[in-house]
C-alpha cells in the first residue's frame, strides 16, 4: 500500500488519539514528512505478513521531551543520517523500518527515514499506543535485544549503544537525551522479519489513518463521535471503546519526579454535581479514578478529547477550564498477557492496584450510574 501526503493529517490526529496523552504534538514531523513524500513520492507501507522471515528490520523514532521538540526542531535529514550510521555500525543494510510507538511524531519519523531510503515501513508499532519507557515496548517483551543502537542529536553528534538489558538501555538513552538538548533520534531493536511478526502490534498506522478520518468527518461535539469511533474499535485488534466521563478540567498540576512527568488532572461534571474524575499522569494518562474507584488503567488506553471539536488533547496541553470528554479503549490483547503485564501493569508505574480490564471496570461504573 502506498502512503501519500494526503493521508498525513489523518495519520497525525489518529496517532494523537492512540498516544493517550503522550507522544507530543506531531506538527513539525508532519511538515517534514510532507516534504519528504513530495520529493520522493509516497512511502511504501507493507503488512508485517508480507515481510520475509529473514528480512533485517529496526525501529526508528525520537526519544526525549515533547515540549523540547516545540523549539528544538527536527531536521528533515536526521532520520536518514542516523539510519546510515546504524547500518555502517552493524555492517548490514536494513530491508524495512518499523515505528516504536504510534503517537505524535513517532508515528511519522519512520516514514521520513524509509521514504528517503526507498525501503518500506511496516504497518504497526511496538506499543499500539504511547508509553514512557523502552522496556514497555512489545519488542523487548518478546525478548528482542534493544541494541546495537545508534542515537543522533540535532547537531550531528552520535553515540552507539551496546547494553545487557533494555532497562539499562532505557537509562542510558534517557541520560543521553538530557545531555544532547532534550531530544534525540534513535535506531534500535534490530531484528529479523520473523521476530517482528512475533512482537509487533500490527496495522496501527493504517488504523490511525482510519481514526483520524473519523475525527475529521465527525468533527463536533464529542458525544456524537462516540458511535462511529466505537464501531471502528469494534472491528480492530483493540478492545471496546467506552465513554468514561465528560466535564471541565478544574485542576491540573504536574511535577518531575524521578525523571518523569508526574501529574494529576481533576475533571468535574459541567454542573459540578456528582463525584469528579481524577486522571493520574506519568507522561501518558495512566489511571482514571472516580473517588477511590479505578475506572480505567494502563495498559488500557485513556484518551482526553476536546468536548467541542473531539480533537484529542496531549497531557502537556491540558489546561484549567477546558471542557473535555474522557474515553477508554481496551488495549490490544498482547498487553494483557502475563508477560506484558510484568512491565506495564499499574504497579510498574507505582500505583497500588492490579490491572482490571476496562470492560469489567466500566460495567461496574455504568451499573453505578
Amino acid at each position: 500500500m502506498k502512503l501519500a501526503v494526503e493521508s498525513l493529517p489523518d495519520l497525525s490526529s489518529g496517532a494523537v488519539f492512540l498516544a493517550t496523552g503522550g507522544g507530543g504534538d506531531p506538527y513539525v514531523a508532519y511538515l517534514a514528512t510532507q516534504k519528504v513524500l513530495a520529493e520522493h513520492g509516497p512511502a511504501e507501507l507493507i503488512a508485517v505478513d508480507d515481510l520475509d522471515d529473514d528480512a533485517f528490520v529496526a525501529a526508528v523514532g525520537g526519544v526525549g521531551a515533547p515540549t523540547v521538540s516545540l523549539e528544538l526542531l527536527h531536521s528533515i535529514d536526521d532520520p536518514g543520517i542516523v539510519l546510515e550510521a546504524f547500518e555502517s555500525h552493524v555492517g548490514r543494510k536494513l530491508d524495512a523500518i518499523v515505528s516504536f510507538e504510534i503517537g505524535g511524531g513517532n508515528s511519522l519519523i519512520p516514514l521520513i527515514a524509509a521514504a528517503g531510503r526507498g525501503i518500506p515501513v511496516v504497518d504497526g508499532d511496538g506499543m499500539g499506543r504511547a508509553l514512557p519507557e523502552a522496556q514497555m515496548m512489545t519488542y523487548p517483551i518478546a525478548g528482542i535485544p534493544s541494541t546495537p543502537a545508534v542515537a543522533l542529536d540535532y547537531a550531528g553528534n552520535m553515540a552507539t549503544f551496546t547494553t545487557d538489558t533494555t532497562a539499562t538501555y532505557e537509562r542510558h538513552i534517557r541520560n543521553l537525551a538530557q545531555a544532547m538538548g532534550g531530544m534525540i533520534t534513535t535506531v534500535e531493536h534490530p531484528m529479523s522479519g520473523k521476530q517482528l511478526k512475533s512482537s509487533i502490534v500490527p496495522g496501527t498506522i493504517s488504523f490511525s489513518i482510519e481514526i483520524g478520518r473519523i475525527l475529521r468527518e465527525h468533527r463536533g461535539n464529542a458525544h456524537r463521535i462516540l458511535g462511529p469511533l466505537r464501531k471502528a474499535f469494534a472491528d480492530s485488534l483493540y478492545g471496546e471503546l467506552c465513554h468514561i466521563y465528560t466535564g471541565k478540567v478544574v485542576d491540573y498540576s504536574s511535577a518531575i519526579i524521578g525523571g518523569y512527568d508526574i501529574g494529576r488532572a481533576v475533571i468535574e461534571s459541567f454542573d459540578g454535581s456528582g463525584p469528579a474524575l481524577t486522571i493520574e499522569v506519568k507522561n501518558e494518562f495512566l489511571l482514571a479514578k472516580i473517588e477511590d474507584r479505578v475506572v480505567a488503567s494502563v495498559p488500557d488506553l485513556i484518551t482526553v478529547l476536546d468536548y467541542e471539536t473531539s480533537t484529542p488533547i496531549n497531557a502537556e496541553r491540558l489546561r484549567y477550564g477546558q471542557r473535555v470528554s474522557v474515553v477508554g479503549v481496551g488495549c490490544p490483547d498482547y498487553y494483557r498477557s502475563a508477560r506484558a503485564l510484568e512491565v506495564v501493569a499499574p504497579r510498574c508505574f507505582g500505583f497500588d492496584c492490579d490491572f482490571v480490564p476496562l470492560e469489567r471496570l466500566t460495567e461496574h461504573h455504568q451499573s453505578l450510574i
Partner: protein
Amino acid sequence: MLRIGIDVGGTHTDAVLLDGDEVVASTKSLTSRDVSSGILEALETILSGDSGVEKKVEAVMLGTTQFTNAVIERRELAEVAAIRIGLPSGRGIPPKTGWPGDIARCLGGNVYMLRGGYLYDGWLLAQLDDREIDTVIGDLKAKRVEAVAISSAFSPMNPEPERLLAERIRAVLPEIHITESHSIGRLGILERENAAMLNASLLGFAGRVVDSFVAAIRERGLNCRFFISQNDGTLMDAEFARRYPALTFASGPTNSLRGASKLTGLNDAIVVDIGGTTSDFGILQDGFPRESNIVIDVGGVRTNFRMPDILSIGLGGGSLVAADGASVGPRSVGHELVSKGLVFGGETLTATDIVVAAGHAEIGDPEKVRNLKPEVVAAAQGEISSMFNAGIEKMKPSSDPLPVVLVGGGAVLVTEKLAAASSMLLPEHSGVANAIGAAIAQIGGEAERMISYDKITRQDAISQVTGEATNVALTAGAEAASIRVADIEETSISYMPGNTVRVRVKVVGDIAGIGQTSGLEAKV
C-alpha cells in the same frame, strides 16, 4: 465618568458614549475608505447632544477588524524577510513551511536560517556567526526589505539572540520594521515565528491605520487617553498597537461577547452575532469569551494566539434564499443588500426579505415581498431557525439549555424562540454590542518563564512571574490596585533535570482612573 467605545469593522463603524453604566448615545455608520472620516462622522453623532462634552470624556477605546481582514483578504500586507536563528536544528523546515501559497507569495521569498539560539537548559544551541549576520544584513539592504521577523530557538526563555540580531540590523537599516518573536508568542517556535511574520507584515499598515484613528479622535477635540482592544478583551495603548497589530486579530468577536455580557448582565450565555453574511456563535463563561483549546489558524496560517472559540456559519441578513425556500446561504449579497434585496427594490431573494414577508420586521418596502408564496416564506423561516438551533447545539457546553443573546445588525432574522435556547434576549443597543465591548475592556499583562523548582520554590517562582506580568500591565496603563491574577499555568518539562517548570501568569486590571462597572440593566 464618560467614555467612548468605537468598533471599526469592514463595513460599519459603530460608536457609543457611556456615562458609567448608561448608554448615552450610540450610532452606526459606514466605514470610510480612509477610516478616519467614518470615525469622525460617528463621533459627531454621539457627541452632538451636548456642547463641550468631549472635554468630559476620560477615555476612548477602539476595537477593529482592519488587521484581521487585511490577513484574510491578503491586502495591505508588506513583504517580510523571515530570519530564524536555530541551525543546526530544523534543517529542511524553513520559515513559512506549510503556509497557503497565496499568503506566502504576499510575504515574499526572503527566508534566512542562521546558526545560534539556546537549548532548554540554557546551553548554547550554537554560536551566532558574525559573518552570517553581515551577509544577511547586506542582502536585506540590497533587496530594500522593509519588514523583518526574527525568531530564535527557546527565545521565550532567552531572547538575547533575537535582540542582538535586531540591534545589528537597526544599526545598518534604521528605518526597517522589525518584530522579534519572543515579544509576541510563547513556546512553539513555528507558531511564534508565524505570528511574528504576520505582525511584521502589518506594521506599515498599522502605522497608517493607528495614525488615522488618533487623527480622527484628536480632530474631534478628544484629548483623553486612547486604547485599542486586543484578542483577550484587554486593552493596549496606541503605541503598542502600532507595534503589535496582530494582537487585535480576535478583538471583534471578543468585544461582541463582552458587550453582550454587559448589555444583559449575563455571565454565562451563548452569544450569536448576526451580520450580513455570517453568524458567529461564541460562549460567555464568567463574563469572558471561552477560549479555543486548539491551535488557531489566521487566514490559513498556524499561530498560537489565545482567541475565543467561535463557530461561524454562512447565515446573515444578506444570505441568498433558494426559490423554494428550502435552503438559505452560505452565499450572500453582503453589503449590497441595500440595493439587491427585494425589499430594497432589487431582484435577489434574501433572508431579510423572508423576515419582512413574514411580518416580523419593517425594513425597506414590504409591498415588494407581498407576492412571495406563504409556503416559501414558511420553509425559509424553518430553515433559518434550524440553522441557528444547529449552531447553538454545536457550541453548547452541555445538554442543559443556556440563554441565548442576539447581537449584531442581522438579529431580526430570529423571529421565534429557538428550541436549543433556555431563553432569548435581544437587548437594547445590541446592534452596537462590539463598541460597548470595546468601551468596557480591561488592561492585561502576561509573562512566562522556564524555572527550576529545585533552585527557587514554586511559590517564589509564581510570584516572580506574577511580578513580571504586573509590570507588563502597569506599563500598558493598568491601575495597580485593581490588578488581579487571571490565570496561572505551570508545565513540567518531561525528562528534564532540575524540576524545570514553565510558569505563565496573566493578570488583568482596570484602566488607571476608570473603575469597572457592573452589568447594565438587561433591557429585553
